[in-house]
């Protein structure tokens, strides 16, 4: 044990703490510069993989601009959309993939929803979430649950059975199930507004 602890005057306190925070800030700035591009790339890869699974016939995806009423909605109950991508095949748009962020039980979910041009849901994938393992996390991990959205009408009318709809909620995770359903509905409404 050291018995001689430093006391120090005010100048020394400021200098030492300033120096420590300065070094930490430099370090973090450096790490951020090294990793920022790579992280962006990884997030794009995750999104592209999910979109390729949902829209299997698509040859390429093209980003589409949507207005602020979708990306930063005034109604706090409406989840924000962080990206819309038109799925192209043979020079035609066969559908849209929408990245939407509804609020779940454990924070915001990030999910990709595919909407076909014929007005049906092509599919959905949860790409990031903070739901309870073994309960809400099944929205991502249980492949049999999320597939029930495929083929449903994309008119914003979907609801879980508890709310009088047709979507079977995950047992014990009604909030997560509602969030995913809301995400699909919002994506459908957004695509419908594109015409």
């Amino acid at each position, binding site marked *: 044990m050291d018995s001689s602890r430093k006391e120090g005057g005010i100048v020394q306190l400021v200098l030492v703490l300033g120096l*420590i925070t300065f070094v930490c800030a430099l370090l973090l700035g450096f790490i951020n510069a090294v990793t920022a591009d790579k992280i962006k790339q990884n997030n794009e890869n995750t999104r592209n993989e999910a979109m390729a699974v949902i829209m299997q016939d698509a040859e390429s995806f093209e980003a589409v601009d949507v207005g602020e009423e979708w990306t930063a909605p005034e109604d706090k109950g409406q989840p924000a959309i962080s990206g819309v991508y038109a799925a192209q095949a043979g020079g035609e748009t066969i559908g849209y993939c929408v990245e939407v962020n509804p609020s779940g039980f454990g924070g915001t979910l990030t999910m990709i929803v595919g909407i076909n041009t014929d007005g049906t849901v092509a599919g959905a994938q949860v790409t990031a979430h903070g739901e309870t393992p073994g309960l809400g996390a099944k929205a991502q991990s249980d492949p049999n649950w999320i597939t029930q959205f495929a083929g449903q009408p994309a008119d914003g009318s979907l609801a879980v059975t508890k709310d009088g709809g047709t979507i079977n909620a995950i047992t014990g995770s009604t909030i997560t199930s509602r969030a995913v359903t809301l995400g699909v509905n919002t994506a459908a409404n957004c695509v419908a507004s594109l015409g």
Partner: protein
Amino acid sequence: MKFKDQLKAGVILDNPIFMQTIGLCPTLATSTSLSNAIGMGVAATIVLICSNIVISALRRFIPDKVRIAAFITIIAAFVTTIDLALQAFVPSLAASLGLFLPLIVVNCIILGRAEAYASKNAVLPSALDGVCMGLGFTFALVLMGFFRELLGAGTFLAGLSTLLPFLSGVIPAEGFAIPFFNTNPVVMMILPAGGFLMLGFIFAAIQKIMAGKEDK
């Protein structure tokens, strides 16, 4: 203090969760499954070792009056560095640990060891203290996670193959289903209330075992 004694202290006699009862918040939050427990335990251990080493090395340089601010800055810098590095280079691990990493900054085990040990001892013992306390924390999490996952979801090691992709051939993504528990899951055990219950049961069991030892 010898490493063996330090290890025994960290894992059993002074176990951060069961004996010192610090760091209970992350324990309750991340012990919902065995794989989460392992992930959080390992991540916290790495941060603990790093922060103990740096704080011990700077212990004569940091004035007493600003030590807490200095410790938190150093810990936060480590956590952010590890978070960003994982996101960039091991995205699968970052996806499963993403929730826990920011929690480590406010994990009082790390600040507690910085204050109680690393700021008063040399670098090597401080690093070993980090290893031992980290193991103790991981041990407690694993014990909780094992029982909560078994009782609450009826599975064993679910999600470990997402955490460690090289195991995906050995362990199915949904883990091993345990007969009986699988068909009768007590969902409450993986909810927060179940965390408190399990912690209480484990505390009781440990007190019983320790009391028995003292009698002899």
